């Protein structure tokens, strides 16, 4: 403890002192003072904006000038449900999110398992930092590197050439690979945390009772770590659903993000209505994830 400087307390009657005493006696007011700023900011600016987005999805546009008109209408939602383009785009995006999530879970498992069960504590700490650091390296730069690598004469095709394979410059496969890369650490960390929480005694008990490694893994480890996988999938799923930069760079097909991005200037109400799709999908996903116990793994 450092010694507290002997500051002369202000005289009892000073206004500052009186305010301080008042606050001390009324701790609800003190609490209100603490919360006013942050709550005000988040509720007014953030929730207010989200509410405005919801309102905007019910607005109309002038067909010729594409000026926003504040008439209430459900036409934007009708359009999204009825025009096959929007349905296809939504379906394509959700499928991509599923494939990316599966690939990330498969890739993340060995690293997470190695970190949690095999590595020494020292190696483990190094690995956690090694997995965590690239998360902070600019997302945009990583997206850009993948575009460079996936170019017609990029390093990926150079590596594939000896096997007689070639990847098109812009392809769903390339996009899938890039998404899988970008969100991988978000899957590794929850699985690692989940594996670490499994008591070692359970695995030993399984072995004592005659369970072989594979059987122990399938019947004990996997069910126990499953909520953690679901927790990781919340990130991989949500991030894929909302992304517009990677598809712009790497794919030639439209995704939810790219449609919202291009529509935002020409037709804000339709963009806002389409933005409700990822919100709805994520709400449903979070509901299911909660039932599977994923929130305890966060």
């Amino acid at each position, binding site marked *: 403890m*450092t010694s*507290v400087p002997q*500051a002369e*307390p202000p005289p009892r009657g000073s206004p500052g002192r009186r305010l*301080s*005493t008042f606050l001390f006696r009324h*701790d609800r007011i003190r*609490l209100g003072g*603490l*919360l006013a*700023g*942050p*709550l005000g*900011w*988040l*509720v007014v*600016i953030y929730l207010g904006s989200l509410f*405005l*987005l919801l309102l905007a999805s019910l607005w109309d546009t002038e067909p010729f000038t594409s000026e926003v008109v504040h008439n209430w209408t459900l036409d934007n939602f009708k359009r999204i449900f009825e025009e096959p383009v929007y349905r296809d785009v939504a379906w394509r995006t959700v499928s991509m999110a599923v494939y990316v999530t599966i690939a990330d879970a498969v890739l993340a498992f*060995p690293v997470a*398992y*190695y970190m949690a069960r*095999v590595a020494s504590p020292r190696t483990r*700490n190094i690995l*956690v*930092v090694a*997995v*965590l*650091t690239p*998360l902070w*390296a*600019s997302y*945009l*730069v*990583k997206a*850009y590197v993948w575009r*460079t*690598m996936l*170019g017609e*004469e*990029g390093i990926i095709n150079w590596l594939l050439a000896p096997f007689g394979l070639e990847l098109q410059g812009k392809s769903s496969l390339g996009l899938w690979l890039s998404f899988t*890369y970008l969100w991988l*650490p978000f899957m590794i960390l929850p699985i*690692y945390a989940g594996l*670490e929480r499994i008591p070692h005694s359970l695995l*030993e008990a*399984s*072995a004592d009772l005659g369970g072989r*490694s594979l059987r*122990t893994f399938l019947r004990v480890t996997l069910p126990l770590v499953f909520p953690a996988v679901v927790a990781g999938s919340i*990130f991989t799923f*949500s*991030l894929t659903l*909302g*992304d517009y*930069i990677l598809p712009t760079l790497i794919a030639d097909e439209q995704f939810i993000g790219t449609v*919202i991005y291009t529509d935002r200037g020409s037709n804000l109400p339709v*963009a806002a209505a389409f*933005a409700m799709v990822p919100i709805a999908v*994520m709400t449903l996903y979070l509901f299911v994830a909660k039932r599977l116990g994923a929130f305890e793994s966060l």
Partner: protein
Amino acid sequence: MVESRLTRVLLRLGAGATLAFIYFPLFVIAIYAFNENISQTWPIEHYTTKWFGVAWRDENVRDALLLSVKAALGATAIALVLGTLAALAVSRYRFFGKETISFLVILPIALPGIITGLALQATILNVLDPIGISFSIWTIIIGHATFCIVVVYNNAVARSRRIGGSLQEASMDLGADAWQTFRFVTFPQLRTALLAAALLAFALSFDEVVVTIFTSGAQQTLPIWIFTNFGRPRELPIVNVVALFVIFASIIPVWIAQRIAGGGLATERPGKGAVAAAIDAEP
């Protein structure tokens, strides 16, 4: 050890392969920064450091860098104040709706960035513009501060819970007023946590692009400069250099933050800390 020898060898190989996959692209961009040729083909024929000089002298890059730094400083300052206040309220008091605060703080980074961006854009165009606040550095700062609050909040709550409130009470009992208690007791206890949080918030704001595109109008932060120059083949050598710079500019503050927080961000509480940091890093 339950795992057999073979399993462990296979796991080690699998882990090594995944780590190689994670780091491979970062090495590729580092090499490309030294590519002399304007076309970005592989293998690289000639190496040079000349693009570093070209990038440094580029007016647009400099302006974008300056704007990014200013916006990140502004957003960090606001997030520090608001995040600390919210953290003190949540860690010291019991009140109705306490759980909601944590949820509300995390929402701006939990929802896909495009939602946050589009919502803020709608507000800027429909509410702020009519009252005279159009796209400017302030709209960028407002957006960034909103999703940076969570970083400060998480760090401050964790520290505040660990140290408890008894020293504050002792200080008040000994006759210090609220300001003196904050100045001489609470703040020194939170200082390193807040410094670490400030570095993380700066890093988060500095390379953010998904929300920024919606809140910046015609201005260019450094990531937006990169984004707009993807499509200009002649600028790509400069983009490579700037990209490498941005990687370091966002990783170095995080490393320092981890050191300051005594490794508490990633290693002290491996599970929760790591996941919390992962949540913070969401683009």
